[in-house]
């Protein structure tokens, strides 16, 4: 990108992930915004634009989260856009603000995401029409979200010889990272034996190998590079922020769908493959330059397949890196130093922004006992429900 049009990250803030069924989502959102303002050393009236991620779980707040947060913190007349893009909403909000800044529409903008999720499985939200495949898959098949991942996981096990111990090991590694993250919901460290003693939800995937639905919030403040130096000496740079969708012929059986092509004419999780490729190109950075990655380990299967989509290893090699300890902090390519969605839980509107917070803390050397020494380039990527992906690269 043209150096003058570079976008800096000057503030990040989060509300710890957990379960807060009695809380007002405004409280979580405003908490994250105020933390980000404090981190940036600016006040709310300095913010010139806001993009907020929508949640399907939260009624009127879920439609217009940005406006609800602005009302709670003080309306200033700024442009606010609310973005409904499932798991890629956070990345979409960051991308929207970044585009406003690099396009010269504003100098300082904020992206924010909040969710208070229902307990247990996500449910059908539709009205019962046969064209609403989300309703159809629940009613006619009883098909739960993680069962889609389980189908792909079992096939991967047959193709690459992935063992149940490998699936368990993803949780073990992530849980070791999460114990040091004050924002993670689960801080218990698991052993392989403990994971394998956890019941199946949808074989071959077990309860603790799946991310639960969580409540949480995250915010990030972006700034034009020329103005960023007023606030920080050496700002973190948003080097790439992509948004992609699936390609025709993608063989993945995606959540809500009833079918998928038998013969692949595009890669598995083609949306994610495209998102990584696009972010690498925008940043002028390759997979070999990445110091660590925050990936969507929504299930043990995701952990493995997203490493490959990111070209951090070749197909079938993710298990090898995992077994060698290369994905742990201190290894060659640490995955999810935050603990990832498996330890945070999924507050999907906030996910991409929460990843950004962890990436920034790591690059600034503020990650405490989970610090990756000397990290200068970080990659983040969220899972996307309907072939919907956003990848982010930041650098020092």
């Amino acid at each position, binding site marked *: 990108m043209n150096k003058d049009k570079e976008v800096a990250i000057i503030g990040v803030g989060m509300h710890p992930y957990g379960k807060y069924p009695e809380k007002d989502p405004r409280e979580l959102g405003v908490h994250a915004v105020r933390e980000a303002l404090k981190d940036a050393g600016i006040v709310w009236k300095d913010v010139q634009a806001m993009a907020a991620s929508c949640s399907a779980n939260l009624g009127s707040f879920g439609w217009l989260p940005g406006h609800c947060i602005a009302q709670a913190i003080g309306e200033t007349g700024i442009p606010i856009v609310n973005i409904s893009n499932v798991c890629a909403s956070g990345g979409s909000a960051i991308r929207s603000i970044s585009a406003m800044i690099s396009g010269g529409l504003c100098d300082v903008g904020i992206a924010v995401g909040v969710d208070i999720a229902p307990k*247990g499985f996500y449910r059908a939200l539709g009205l019962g029409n*046969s064209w609403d495949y989300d309703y159809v898959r629940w009613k006619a*098949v*009883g098909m739960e979200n993680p069962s889609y991942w389980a189908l792909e996981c*079992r096939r991967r096990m047959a193709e690459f010889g992935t063992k149940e111990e490998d699936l368990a090991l993803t949780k073990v590694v992530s849980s070791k990272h999460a114990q040091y993250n004050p924002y993670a919901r689960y801080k218990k460290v698991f052993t392989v034996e403990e994971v394998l003693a956890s019941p199946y939800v949808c074989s071959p995937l077990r309860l603790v190998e799946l991310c639960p639905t969580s409540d949480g919030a995250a915010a990030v403040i972006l700034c034009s590079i020329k103005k960023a130096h007023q606030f920080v000496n050496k700002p973190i740079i948003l080097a790439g922020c992509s948004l992609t969708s699936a390609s*025709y012929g993608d063989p993945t*059986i995606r959540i809500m769908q*009833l*079918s998928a092509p038998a013969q692949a004419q595009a890669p598995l999780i083609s949306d994610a493959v495209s998102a990584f490729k696009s972010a690498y190109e925008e940043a002028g950075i390759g997979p070999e330059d990445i110091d660590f990655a925050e990936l969507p380990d929504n299930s043990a299967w995701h952990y493995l397949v997203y490493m490959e989509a990111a070209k951090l290893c070749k197909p079938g090699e993710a298990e090898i890196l995992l077994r060698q300890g290369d994905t742990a902090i201190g290894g060659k390519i640490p995955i999810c130093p935050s603990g990832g969605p498996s330890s945070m839980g999924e507050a999907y509107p906030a996910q991409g922004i929460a990843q950004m917070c962890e990436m920034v803390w790591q690059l600034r050397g503020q990650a405490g006992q989970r610090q990756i020494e000397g990290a200068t380039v970080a990659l983040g990527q969220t899972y996307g429900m309907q072939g919907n992906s956003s990848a982010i690269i930041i650098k020092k």
Partner: protein
Amino acid sequence: MDNDRINVKQVSVFPEFFTWPSDDPRLVATRCKSCGYCAFPKSFSCGNPNCTNNNVEDILLSKTGKLWSWSTQYYQPPPPFIAADPYVPFAVGLVEFPEGIKILGIITGCTDPDKQLKIDMPVEVVAEKLFTDEQENEVIGWKFKPIG
């Protein structure tokens, strides 16, 4: 009692998705006559961006396919699915048809799916009761049954 049984009304869960009542129930898909693109549930439109003809027709898929993968659901799905009470874990599978499409459905005819099912084993399409709805109708859906 016999009269009650006779009076049970059977309804299709989604009538346009599979042929029923029939001794040979089949899934209904669409295929583009120009490029071969296949869709289930059937679509009014060809979903291939490289094809500009949009020349779709309804087709009946083959009676049998191969079990591409499966998963046993150990926790009860929420409504609108109406699960057996008490809940009995059941398998869902993705079946590959010769027409070039993989389709989701419940696997029937096995008591211990994780021991009995094998990847790529042959299965056939059947129409069976899914559940009894609030109006006491027997709701019939498509399922896949291992052959042999």
